[in-house]
């Protein structure tokens, strides 16, 4: 049985200029102990999907569909019931760790806060002991001397470790990490990703890793969903998604990110032409069709369903028959 089962999640946000269709009919499951990646560019709806699940949308947003977690639909829960689940069973790690921490509260207190809140510790002394343990678990050196420090005394990487320690404090079943390493340097990113994977294995948690970086998911996740313009366009286990992508957008993305290990010679990258879609005025048909080299008339009018194209491999593309390795090569001449 899956730990989280999201079905037909659709999120709208009202703004002064109109309604944004930020998430459109997204369904996926996350298994126990699995690391599930959601990749997409800005505006693809990846962060909004997570926020909708956790009930963290602002007042102008509304989500429909269902998100089953442990037999309860998170989308229909009352806010105080949701409060009990957030932090306790599902924890969130955000991109900007430095601003996720309260600048005037000591590190130790912030790590212990959720434990105290959910009544997992009986005394302050116990909370402190558990905080110290968590700090060493996430690789913060000299825990005794640093537990009473303030966030500004920590580097960005160390702040992210503190945030992770706080997220772990209630032994959640699921951690949602929204671009947890985007603000970090590449050598620190490497450390933090390793830490997350190691902790996930150790505690048997599930992890949803949201990122724009194909490299990060390839190295971290077991299964990946690719989002574009609010829709989930492809979902598969990591190996088959990267080896045999079945959606032109995924193929284009893999084609246009620079590879470090290939000898590039004078070859040019093959960019995806055009710009990401406008969420105010969603296109009819496939949302990727204006940028897709395979688009035909059907793509412009029919919204493709998410179909299982191979075992466990889902794709939202009508042109499965003509998908080939070099669909983007002819395109490069134009771009």
């Amino acid at each position, binding site marked *: 049985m899956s730990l989280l089962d999201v079905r037909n999640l659709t999120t709208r946000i009202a703004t002064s200029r109109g309604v944004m269709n930020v998430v459109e009919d997204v369904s996926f499951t996350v298994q126990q102990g699995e690391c599930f990646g959601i990749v997409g*560019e*800005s505006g693809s709806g990846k962060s909004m999907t997570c926020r909708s699940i956790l009930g963290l949308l602002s007042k102008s947003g509304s989500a429909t569909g269902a998100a089953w977690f442990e037999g309860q639909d998170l989308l229909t829960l009352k806010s105080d019931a949701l409060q009990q689940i957030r932090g306790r069973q599902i924890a969130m790690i955000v991109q900007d760790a430095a601003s996720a921490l309260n600048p005037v509260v000591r590190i130790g207190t912030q790590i212990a806060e959720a434990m105290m809140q959910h009544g997992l510790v009986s005394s302050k002394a116990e909370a402190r002991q558990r905080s110290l343990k968590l700090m060493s678990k996430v690789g913060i050196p000299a825990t005794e001397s640093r537990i009473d420090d303030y966030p500004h005394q920590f*580097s*960005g*990487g*160390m702040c992210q470790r503190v945030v992770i320690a706080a997220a772990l404090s209630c032994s959640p079943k699921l951690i949602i990490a929204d671009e947890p390493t985007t603000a970090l*340097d*590449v*050598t*620190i*990113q*490497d*450390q933090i*990703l*390793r830490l997350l994977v190691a902790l996930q294995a150790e505690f048997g948690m599930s992890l949803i890793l949201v990122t*724009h*970086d*194909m*490299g*990060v998911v*390839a*190295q971290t996740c077991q299964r990946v969903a690719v989002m574009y313009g609010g829709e989930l366009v492809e979902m598969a286990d*990591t*190996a088959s*998604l*990267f*080896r045999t992508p079945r959606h032109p*957008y995924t193929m*284009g*993305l*893999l084609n*246009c*990110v*620079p*590879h*470090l*290990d290939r*000898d*590039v*010679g*004078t070859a*040019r*990258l*093959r*960019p*995806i*032409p055009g*710009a*990401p879609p406008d969420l105010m005025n969603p296109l009819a048909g496939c949302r990727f069709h204006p*940028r897709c080299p395979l688009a035909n008339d059907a793509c412009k009018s029919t919204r493709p369903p998410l179909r299982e194209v191979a075992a466990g491999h889902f794709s939202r593309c009508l042109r499965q028959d003509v998908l080939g390795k070099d669909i983007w090569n002819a395109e490069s001449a134009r*771009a």
Partner: protein
Amino acid sequence: MRDAGQPSALRPLVEVDDLTKRFGARGGLSQILGAASQRQLTAVDAVSFQINAGEILGLVGESGSGKTTLGRCLLRLVEPSSGQVRFDGKDLISLSKGDLRVARRQMQMIFQDPYSALNPRMTIRQMLSEVLRFHRICTDAAIPARIAELLALVGLDQSAADRLPRHFSGGQRQRIGIARALAVEPRFIVADEPVSAVDVSVQAQIMNLLLDLRDQLGLTILLIAHDLSVVRYVSDRVGVLYLGRLVEIAPTAQIFAAPRHPYTQALLRAAPRPDPDRHPAQPAIAGEPPSPLNPPPGCHFHTRCPLATARCKSEMPPLQTVSDGHQVRCHHHDLALLNPSPR
């Protein structure tokens, strides 16, 4: 490696010599009042390199490496503390204000954040006309044609001219920023993280645009980035900065095939790849970069270096030439060569 084999490529257009920038030496009232000694931050520490005409030099470093300050020093947007910058043989640092204004026509900058790099209250036409008029690039009558030309050059639609920046996507704004820089017909461009704030699917468009502009206009470009994969695609040579010091510089193919500095190797190992089969067991590098306010003595990298010895803790390694065009600042660069492949 890219072909930069025009005859002019052998002549350095930009020469940087011992360039140093220190921040925090406060003047003014606090100095007069004898305020407690200020902590100094050496953002750029005696950096020297050259960029040949028509070449793209990539400069890589993490936050705090001084790469942005270095780029701004080259254009004198930040006044260097010491050292020399020569442009086409002329010393830029000693230029008077008037001469600097003339020189600025030859050197331009492309910025990281396409959202803050454009004045939100000026249409693209107003922005470009101001540049063209200010530098008397062309007659007033010729301005509309020149604007059309610039927009075409960076791949924007002509209808873009009369809109405000907020109507454009990140990638389009970056193109507008490039058009503004090109308006003065510069010979040299400092591109400070031009793609790091742009969507992944659009990054390649901007990178290819930079390459096209180099080829079409013979531009010389200093490309500053934190992302090794970006410089690999765009640069002819790559320099690596760590805490203000240039630790390695080499032709692109060379530095990626056989990096000689342990830090460069670590950077290469740490970069995530879209390759599901690659799961290195060991972390690329342990520890955090030291604070630039209080850098370690000797080799700045010794606190994190697997090869560090007592010598590294006390003696700053010089920048040594290890092969043609490949320089490295490491006492143990021979050992580093034996280090397992960075992959």
